[in-house]
């Protein structure tokens, strides 16, 4: 009697994630690509988890459903990037997502800030999504075809997320009194970290040389600032300063762990850590 072969549940790559052959990649390119995918994945994962904190407590039932759905989309994007990275490194996506120590995460500092109130959440998320849109645009023409392919799909969803956030930013900023004041306060707190989405990558030169990334992060930051400032100006809000330093000049892998992230990490890894190595 033969026992049916058991599928390796944790190594499965979902069907919407492109499979690719890594044998043709130079080791330096492979490592640089893995690092890029990790920053993309961690950004979406942390942003999605932050959004999910609004489930059940959003200002209106409809918004609760909409925002929870956006949270799921973001975590879905993270999954795609983690599973692509898994093909390069051989590390399971679940382990990457839940099994690292806080200092090993590569998300932008902008996402360290706690969710705070609704206006704060909208303001921070708007800054992140406008930056993410510029970054995804630069990756849409990547020489690494599987990345260009998933980025094209992800941009279709992100377009809607940005519309949603922009609608809210306009509503809040256009309403004199507490709504507008809260947006202004939030901007004051998060603006210094906003450009951290474009913090230089450790192997950025390699990504540029291989045309995996279309333009240096610093150029993308400038592009984003121009676009975002146009909208902020329309709303008569504080501008992103030209000299906004990407994560105070530090690379993503050198940035210190913020207290705001440590508590978030405690929560999103709590189930995974409760029984490490177990198959769910």
């Amino acid at each position, binding site marked *: 009697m033969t026992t049916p072969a058991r599928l390796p549940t944790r190594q499965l790559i979902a069907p919407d994630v492109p499979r690719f052959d890594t044998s043709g990649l130079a080791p330096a390119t492979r490592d640089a690509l893995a690092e890029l995918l990790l920053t993309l994945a961690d950004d979406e994962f942390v942003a999605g988890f932050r959004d999910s904190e609004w489930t059940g407590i959003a*200002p*209106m*039932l*409809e*918004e609760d*459903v*909409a925002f929870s*759905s956006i949270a799921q989309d973001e975590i879905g994007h993270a999954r795609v990037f983690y599973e692509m990275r898994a093909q390069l490194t051989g590390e399971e996506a679940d382990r990457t997502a839940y099994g690292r120590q806080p200092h090993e995460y590569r998300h932008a500092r902008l996402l360290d800030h706690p969710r705070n109130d609704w206006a704060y959440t909208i303001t921070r998320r708007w800054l992140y999504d406008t930056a993410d849109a510029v970054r995804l645009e630069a990756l849409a023409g990547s020489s690494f075809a599987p990345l260009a392919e998933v980025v094209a799909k992800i941009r279709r969803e992100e377009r*809607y997320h940005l*519309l*949603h956030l922009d*609608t*809210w930013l306009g*509503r809040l900023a256009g309403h004199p009194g*507490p*709504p507008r004041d809260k947006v202004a306060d939030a901007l004051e707190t998060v603006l210094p970290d906003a450009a951290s989405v474009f913090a230089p990558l450790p192997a950025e030169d390699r990504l540029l040389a291989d045309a995996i990334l279309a333009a240096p992060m610093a150029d993308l930051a400038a592009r984003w600032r121009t676009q975002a400032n146009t909208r902020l100006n329309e709303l008569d809000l504080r501008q992103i300063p030209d000299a906004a330093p990407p994560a105070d000049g530090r690379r993503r892998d050198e940035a210190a762990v913020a207290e705001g992230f440590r508590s978030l990490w405690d929560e999103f890894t709590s189930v995974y850590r409760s029984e490490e190595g177990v198959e769910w």
Partner: protein
Amino acid sequence: MTRQTGTGPADLPKGAAAPAEGRREAIGRLGEGARTDVFEVFRQEKDGDAMRHAGNVVAPDIELATHYAREFYSRRQESVRLWVVPRVQITDLSDPGLLQPPLDRSFKKPGGYVMRDKLEVAKKRAAKEKAKAKGAGDR
């Protein structure tokens, strides 16, 4: 009967009339003066299908109502088109005096004529002619 999908929280109770002035609701938590309206959502499942009433959403304006309609009635890719209509724009006609006149109107219905025998004769004739035409064609 329209098929209801999703869970619009402001569904009208069965048989209730849509209020002529629409429903404006104050949501205390959004702050004083915050108002929301009810928007009715219609969806098309695939190209060529009729638009069917899906349900409704509560939102402060048409822009957010459209976002919410998308999340409630198309988040699982179950629609190819949505119509979002402020309930205040819908004219409700449910006056029985206009819709259910008291006098006998059975003569307006396509029933009441005895067709069975005539139909039988017509069918036989049609079959005979068809056979004749076929025979002519064979020759």
